[in-house]
């Protein structure tokens, strides 16, 4: 139980406790007192150490309580708290609350605050690498955690980590570990191309890299999306035709119909549309519709109709 003795001067506010009410929650006593006091302190805008400490208890009771997070942030600002200590505290909480996203938005706010307080005399400037261990740890628990990946993307953007060696190594490891981790592929796309600098070498390297990953697991939407994504962003529409031979490795429709990847077959269809080989494209989309991807029969029918139009 949280020690509330130092709040005897505060009358807790009533939570949603009136009766009758829809969706009435039977709050336990601890929750009622901690939240009741916190929200009372907030109402009188008390920015104090005791309030600061109590926000921890509140957040531990309900990590998705955005009002308490917001309150804690305002206390931090008012009391000029040590921000690195705050990051440490936040870290522990993140580990205990995998799915919570308030934490990550809060962490961004704290880091922005650290940076805004830095002056030209600040000896130790904030280093983005400070954040790597916690992100790694979180992703080892849940490798596709959307909020954690979004946070990592923010770090790259905020600290210009595009094509940073450690960043590339980190994401390569994630893809190495699970080539179907789409979050990792999305992040890779961003660190390679997110700053819109077009370097032909990087583009070619990435095409080679993803082709190799497709060899590893051909029936993988993530790697095919990455490949096609690069072509769409950096190549002329007709250049997609260059991939014909590569696709045929995984979708041989000329001989004995050995299909290792429906995505390769689909891309072959698209390539034939680009080549204006309509009968071939229709044949491929029909194969997808009837045999290789029947759950999307309406979509393939639509594609055929579009070609015929």
């Amino acid at each position, binding site marked *: *139980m949280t020690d509330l003795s130092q709040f005897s001067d505060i009358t807790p506010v009533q*939570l*949603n406790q009136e009766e009758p*009410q*829809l*969706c009435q*929650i*039977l*709050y*336990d006593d*601890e*929750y009622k007192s901690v939240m009741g006091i916190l929200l009372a302190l907030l*109402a009188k805008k008390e920015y104090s150490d005791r309030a600061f400490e109590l926000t921890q208890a509140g957040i*531990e*009771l309900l990590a998705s*309580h*955005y*009002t308490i997070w*917001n309150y804690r942030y305002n206390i931090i600002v008012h009391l000029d708290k040590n921000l690195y200590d705050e990051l440490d505290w936040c870290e522990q909480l993140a580990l205990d609350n995998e799915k919570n996203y308030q934490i990550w*938005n809060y962490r961004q706010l704290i880091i922005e605050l650290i940076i805004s307080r830095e002056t030209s005399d600040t000896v130790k400037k904030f280093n983005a690498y400070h954040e790597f261990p916690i992100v790694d740890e979180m992703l080892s628990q849940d490798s*596709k955690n*959307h909020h954690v*990946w*979004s946070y990592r*993307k923010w770090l790259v953007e905020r600290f210009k980590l595009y094509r940073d060696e450690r960043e590339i190594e980190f994401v390569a490891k994630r893809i190495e*570990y*699970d*080539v*179907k*981790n*789409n*979050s990792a592929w999305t992040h890779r*796309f*961003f660190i390679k191309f997110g700053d819109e600098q077009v370097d032909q070498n990087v583009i070619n390297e990435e095409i080679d890299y993803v082709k190799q990953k497709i060899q*590893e*697991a*051909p*029936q*993988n*939407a*993530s790697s095919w*999306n*990455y490949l096609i*994504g690069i072509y*769409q*962003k950096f190549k002329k529409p007709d250049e997609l035709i260059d991939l014909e031979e590569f696709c045929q490795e995984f979708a041989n429709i000329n001989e004995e119909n*050995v*299909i*290792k*990847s*429906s995505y390769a077959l689909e891309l072959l269809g698209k390539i034939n549309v680009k080549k204006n080989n309509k009968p071939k494209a229709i044949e491929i989309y029909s194969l997808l519709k009837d*045999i*290789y*991807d*029947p*759950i*999307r029969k*309406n*979509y393939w029918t*639509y594609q055929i109709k579009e070609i015929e139009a």
Partner: protein
Amino acid sequence: MSSKSNNDINADKITYLLGLLGRNRTEKELNSNIADSDYEDIEDSKMSTLESMLTRPPISEGTYISDTTVAQDDVSEVIQEIYEDVVQTGIAAGFETESHMQYARRSLFNALPWYYRSLDANHGWMLYWLVNFKQLLPTESGNAEPIAEEISMLVTEKINSVIIDEGLGGIAGGKHQIGHAASTYASVLALILVEDYETLNKIRPNLYIWIMRSLKNGPDSGDKYGSFSMHPHGESDTRSTYCVLVIASLLNILTDELREGTAEWISRCQTFEGGFAGVPSTEAHGGYTFCALASYFFLLGKPQNEENGELKAQISKYIDIDGLLHWTVMRQYQLEGGLSGRTNKLVDACYSFWIGGVFPLLEMVLEEESLFDREALRIYILNCCQDSRGGLRDKPGKSPDFYHSNYTALGLCVAENTYSINKEKKTGADNYAYKITSIPISGNVQFRAINPIFGLPLGYAEKCKEHFIRLDCK
């Protein structure tokens, strides 16, 4: 630290659930999917869809194994067993309307045990999810039943208790909390369901001030320009942006000033995969994709020449429709029939709406009748997502909750109807969101149409909008 351990929580949950059942059921009964009495003979069309779902396409997949493949195989195995059972016995699950109605009622009216404090910042959401869920359920007459006076009164009371400064601070997730765009959105929808236009009218001018003063990211906010935040210092993403647009449109306060920069900002959230992310360059995701696409129905100009393809032409100025369509159709899975939220992630019934709801929008844009397998989605929901205690769930093995109940039921409303823009419809609204019409799919269907832009039964958003347009004309 919390004084209750996880074991306590589980023990409390079990006691609570048993209490709801009114008696102590055996474990077998608890685990069985649907009460025997409500099985129904399977129709021929459903059987052929099921057989097709169970036929594995002849793709010589490699031997690659990872966390993703293991998790997928686990789910496939369970679902395959369920479907094979249906094929063998010839009986499939019907929709357990009565049991779901009970779930909705007791969730609204019975006090919820302490661990529901996890929803203490979501009071408006609970009301929207549950009142909406209840209103979506099939009725014997086929027509919607009016919402009971008792519910209307209590919805009004509760929402009024979380309005901050008569709307100048938005609507909060609970008493004494701060205003939040998503809470405001959910609360506005709840008020619209009970047709409490009086409360809405009272706070409408102040909500506009709140949005413009506290939520809008203006030209000086850099990369965020055009988006809206959930609250000051809160996150800004496609979800918060959609919430604000819905509120503003329904209350007829959507000015050009409010939506300045928004269409452009959202377009930046489309990823190389074709779907939309919460902010530019993160991963394409079902929930954010729905919010992004639905937002355009509020952002495009007035319908002008009403020619075929006009909506598509307008929306194509901002986003890549073909890419979005491709990403969206890829969310449906061959065996499961249900929808996933991201590439290489598992099926989850809540995406029956977040992705399922994108389909009617795309069908309206492209003027197509049906771009996905509606029957397969129905099969997934009916056979895998109903809990014997009432309520709908993510997938077999998961517990039902308010959130999944609402969005899964909305998914059935999508699957059992087709949607289009009624160009002839006279409306005072200056956009397409209020010109939607629907036709039930052929066959034995029960679920009435929704307005997929809002996730409300068809008619509620339209009525509210007309009300405020009329009021503003005076």
